[in-house]
């Protein structure tokens, strides 16, 4: 299936290549570079390209292109999904996925790639299994390896690959047994000019961090599972139990993983936590304009809005902005035409305001685009959909684990273009 992999940085240099079958010359990437030239943005490069002898399937993540070469028919999503899995594995191992980190850990990277694919077909993609074979690097070990010339391969033989529970390694031991679940939600909403919600949906994930000894069999139930409109699971979750009883029954992987992601389609349920009054106008003469933004809380269910950041994508003609903010600080980047106003905690008593004048390029026509606005924010201890975890039970092991559920609010995007605003923020 997957024949070769090339890693290409933002400026178009191939900085790593890996071949699982025979070696394919890197000139094959020229077709990709051609497409990259044509595309305005890196995201616009078609993920699938046809060349006379090969097919190129690529993903763009963390300012890097992961370009795979295949020679025969293979489901494109299969390859794309695998490439994303590679990125996630790198992030898991090295904390981030960047050119520097990959170059620093080139040996581990090759070892990982070697284990992840055999003859182009995925072999071990579960982080638990990989970690049993290849230890993630630490500074000390990197030094020792450099000096002694040993590799990161585990000395003892891994047994995880042999298990029919491919996501969990055997012989897990902890002195403190704990299981934490974070319910993280984001709202996707389209708000029209007058501020009414055209449609809204909630996107949620349950991120788990499970550190339990042995082979625990967990059951997680919700107070209100009917809320969930659509769900997708980590392979550990038993589909049948969910279908029959709406409980999550699973033997968890060891460590961090995404247990499930869900979707709540609830037009009326969704409360948008903040509002932004925007007044951006340009003078007829075309020499400048005026900007006035005010943010305020809407429905926050008594919780405080934190980390509020408002981003405005200005029309191309805007040269500079001279504004005053009653709270927080603002920056305007004339190259990307992005105005960022970092407000921080939202004080309902004293609403933050940003106002001032914009200067336009001389001679440019009056911009007609009313700029779109992105809002990022954070609310702790609130799941906007109202989803509640009922209880977590453990079977199969005798100890009493420490359990915790957290409803987290993470930053997202909220967008309001001229007539249709697409808001997308998380709570």
């Amino acid at each position, binding site marked *: 299936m997957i024949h070769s992999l090339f890693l290409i940085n933002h400026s178009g240099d191939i900085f790593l290549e890996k*071949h699982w079958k025979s070696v394919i010359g890197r000139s094959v990437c020229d077709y990709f570079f051609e497409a990259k030239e044509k595309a305005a943005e890196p995201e616009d490069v078609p993920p699938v390209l046809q060349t006379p002898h090969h097919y190129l399937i690529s993903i763009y993540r963390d300012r890097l292109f992961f370009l795979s070469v295949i020679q025969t*028919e293979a489901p494109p999503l299969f390859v794309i999904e695998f490439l994303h899995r590679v990125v996630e594995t790198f992030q898991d191992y090295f904390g981030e996925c960047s050119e520097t980190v990959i170059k620093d850990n080139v040996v581990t990277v090759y070892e990982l790639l070697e284990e992840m694919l055999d003859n182009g077909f995925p072999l071990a993609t579960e982080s638990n299994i990989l970690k049993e074979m290849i230890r993630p690097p630490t500074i000390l070990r990197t030094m020792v390896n450099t000096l002694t010339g040993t590799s990161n391969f585990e000395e003892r033989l891994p047994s995880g690959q042999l298990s029919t529970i491919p996501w969990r390694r055997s012989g897990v031991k902890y002195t403190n047994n704990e299981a934490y679940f974070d319910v993280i939600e984001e709202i996707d909403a389209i708000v029209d000019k007058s501020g009414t919600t055209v449609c809204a949906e909630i996107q949620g994930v349950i991120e788990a961090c499970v550190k339990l000894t042995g082979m625990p069999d967990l059951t997680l139930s919700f107070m209100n599972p009917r809320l969930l409109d659509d769900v*997708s699971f980590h392979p550990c979750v038993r589909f049948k139990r969910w279908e*029959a009883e709406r409980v999550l029954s699973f033997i968890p992987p060891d460590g961090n993983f995404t247990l499930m992601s869900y979707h709540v389609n609830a037009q009326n349920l969704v409360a948008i936590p903040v509002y932004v009054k925007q007044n951006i106008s340009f003078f007829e003469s075309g020499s400048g304009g005026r900007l006035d933004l005010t943010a305020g809380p809407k429905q926050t269910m008594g919780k405080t809005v934190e980390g509020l950041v408002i981003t405005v994508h200005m029309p191309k003609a805007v040269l500079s902005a001279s504004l005053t903010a009653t709270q927080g600080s603002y920056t305007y980047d004339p190259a990307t035409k992005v105005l960022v106003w970092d407000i921080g905690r939202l004080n309902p008593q004293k609403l933050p305001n940003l106002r001032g004048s914009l200067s336009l390029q001389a001679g440019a026509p009056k911009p007609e685009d009313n700029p779109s606005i992105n809002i990022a924010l954070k609310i702790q201890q609130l799941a906007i959909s109202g989803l509640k975890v009922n209880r977590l039970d453990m079977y199969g092991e005798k100890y009493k684990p420490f359990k915790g559920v957290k409803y987290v609010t993470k930053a997202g995007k909220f967008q309001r273009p001229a007539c249709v605003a697409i808001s997308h923020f998380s709570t």
Partner: protein
Amino acid sequence: MSASSAFSDEKGGSSSVGEPEYGHDPASGGIFSSDYKRHDDLKEMLDSNKDSLKLEAMKRIVAMIARGKNTSDLFPAVVKNVACKNIEDPNQLIRASALRVLSSIRVTIIVPIMMLAIKEAASDMSPYVRKTAAHAIPKLYSLDPEQKDQLIEVIEKLLADKTTLVAGSVVMAFEEVCPERIDLIHKNYRKLCNLLVDVEEWGQVVIINMLTRYARTQFLNPNLNECLLEEGGESTFYGSDADQDEDEDEDKKDEALSKRKPYVMDPDHRLLLRNTKPLLQSRNAAVVMAVAQLYFHLAPKAEVGVIAKALVRLLRSHSEVQYVVLQNVATMTIKRRGMFEPYLKSFYIRSTDPTQIKVLKLEVLTNLASETNISTILREFQTYIKSMDKDFVAATIQAIGRCATHIGEVRDTCLNGLVQLLSNRDELVVAESVVVIKKLLQMQPEKHSDIIKHMAKLTDNIQVPMARASILWLIGEYCEHVPKIAPDVLRKMAKTFTNEEDIVKLQIINLAAKLYLTNSKQTKLLTQYVLNLAKYDQNYDIRDRARFIRQLIVPTDKCGALSKYAKKLILALKPAPILESPFKDRDHFQLGSLSHLLNTKAGGYQELPDWPQDAPDPSVRNVEVPEWTKCSSREKRKEKKVEKPFYSDSEGESGPTESADSGNSTFYSDSASSSASGSEQSGSGSEESEESEERSDSDEEEEEEEEEAKKRKTQKKEPIEATISPSGSLKSYELLHRITGEGLWVEYCFSRQPFLPDPHMVAVQIQFTNSAATEAKSLRLEEAKLQSGMRVKEFPEIEVLPAGESATVVMGVDFCDSTQAANLQLCTHSRKFFVSIQPPVGELMTPSFMTENEFKKEQGQLMGMNEITEKMQLPERCQNEHAIVQRVIAAANLSRVPCGSDKEFAGRTVTSGSLVLVTVATKESGPSQLTINCEKMVIGTMLVKDILLALTQ
């Protein structure tokens, strides 16, 4: 650290292109110098006795090979190790690694060795080694395609494998080596369907794609009746309305039924659809897509809808995933628009989407447009036109054009909207609008002469060549609608002719020709002027065209026969263009495939066959019921634990005695006879109801069929029952009394079979008998208050138990080596009963085989407090050896030590695996003596009492 410094050195150094050198030969760079240094020790490591060293060496060699490094000097050492030693290594990981190394060596001389090794590994007892063997098959095939026949034999063998670990890999090998040998799948079809949910994600994709093709060759088209009707001209009905009217549906069915035999879905076809459906919830987009395409290609129309929600979910994933999914959705929306209509808003475009995603979403929205939703869609489109992304705006204008051509009601609205865009400030928007308006006007030009006039005025301002050309063509084509303006436009164009782009020049010539033919009085001179200019143009196309037109329209002495027809030729009525989706008819490619995405056949693509006219023999998929003996011999293998799909409580192998072997082969008999597997009943229950709906007008023929099926099922029932209760002498205990249970009578016994899903559990066999007059529904056990540490593995719910029938299931209980009862709740659809399972101490152990010497040795270590001795007087009838053995074994699940002088029995407790040793010493005269050695004193004490009771009564 050294690696990073090597990078920077190289970057700053010799490399002139600014690229690090090491990439050209990945293994030669300085960064791998540590590998060089360690080359010599690889040989030593391979010859060493330590497993870990060997494994390390092997992995390093694989890595070197993968980097394109020449490892030929290590070749003999590896092959020696691999072929002779490591392939027979007791550690399965080493065997697997050895095979991986061997098969990665791309040298033809080792083909025979590789073949041998693969064959050997394919019958290895470790499923992991067998998996590696499956991976090696495509490698050998690419090295030497002549081995195909032999490799197919190996594939055939591995296809019969019953572990989830192997299934994905062998199907992958099948797809690469012999995808045409669909016959190899028959016998394994049901097993693959049942294992599917537990196979790892990547294997699931490959299996589902293969089974889609298989199903297309083996089953009948479930939508055949509808197809017939669609051909009969009712397609509009289907195209516009997704929610079918019940009555009309019936009518259609009747009509179709009169034409052909009623359609009954093959149960195997149903099995595939049912077992793939839960995977729509997978986190892996490739798996979801695979199931979606399977449903699209195989499911009855009414059921395809379930995939829409899952596909819409994928739209929230990475943009690459969105790109592929949208391409597939675009194809699906052409055939089955109805299923995506409820999700219309999910395809609305966000300003943050990359352009290629925007364009695909537009495509989907356009395909979804219908009379009912067109106003919403057009309103949405209007906002898109204000976007800053000009390519996207252009695509939107084209989309509006397509909606206008398809939906007559909104044509005027669209046209007006587009005309308004003509005064847009952005020239690209205007140009695109002109092009689209031109196409729309061609449909009804007579109504829109004012628009044509308006566009004529635009020629003064608009500079985009394509738009200018379109306007000129329009004026020429419909010059009789604008008789006054047309000659004036030509006058202006004649003035600017030399500065125009080529496509515009050609249209000026066209305009001139058309005007000359219709209004030669006013335009004769102008035309000649234009043609003269064109005669000396730099472009030969234009010179050519001018010469041709002149000969055609200007009558001269020598003019040919053609000029008589000039009017007919040039002013012929042109058909209006049809604006079609580029995704039309793309579904002849299997959806989700690379070929579908590129709309060209990729190398190695397997065509999706058409449904057969008549179904091939379904009995090819029948598998004989395996004998129990075969199973148990398998269990005795040392690595038995991994052989069983341990995790799957969800599908297939629900009961413990029903290993994968019996699970697949007896699938249908199970579901009907409600024997061991409950989970399947849940499926079959719904299936039956569906089927009965489908065949609401069932005729006698079908009933006969059903009868026969029932007979078949009952016949098959027996062997399973036999496997569940191996010896008829098990003692049963009552769990729920007939009267308390209101007709439901439940008994349990200890089957003494190993409980496969968890070896630390005691298998408890439960028999439900429904003596009530009504059927009992959703029978299941729930944990009530278990003692700490106690665990229960419930059996899958029994969906329905008809009156007078009985069902047997097996569950596992970990009693923690104590005789405390497991308190459970027995639930039916209407009631709950508290019940408890109390194990006799003798059931808490499993037999352990040992020789007399071992027995004595172990006994020697369990003296003192761990030994309990009891004197007893055996009754008359209990004196002989046979009776004693029988009674002891009945009381406790132990096995006799062969050839012992005394009667010795050995076993281990189920949970902790502590040894239980029992000795019965009999003397000719005087009392006999019973000795029990057991680490667990409580167990020992209780066991003494039980055995004593058994022997003396």
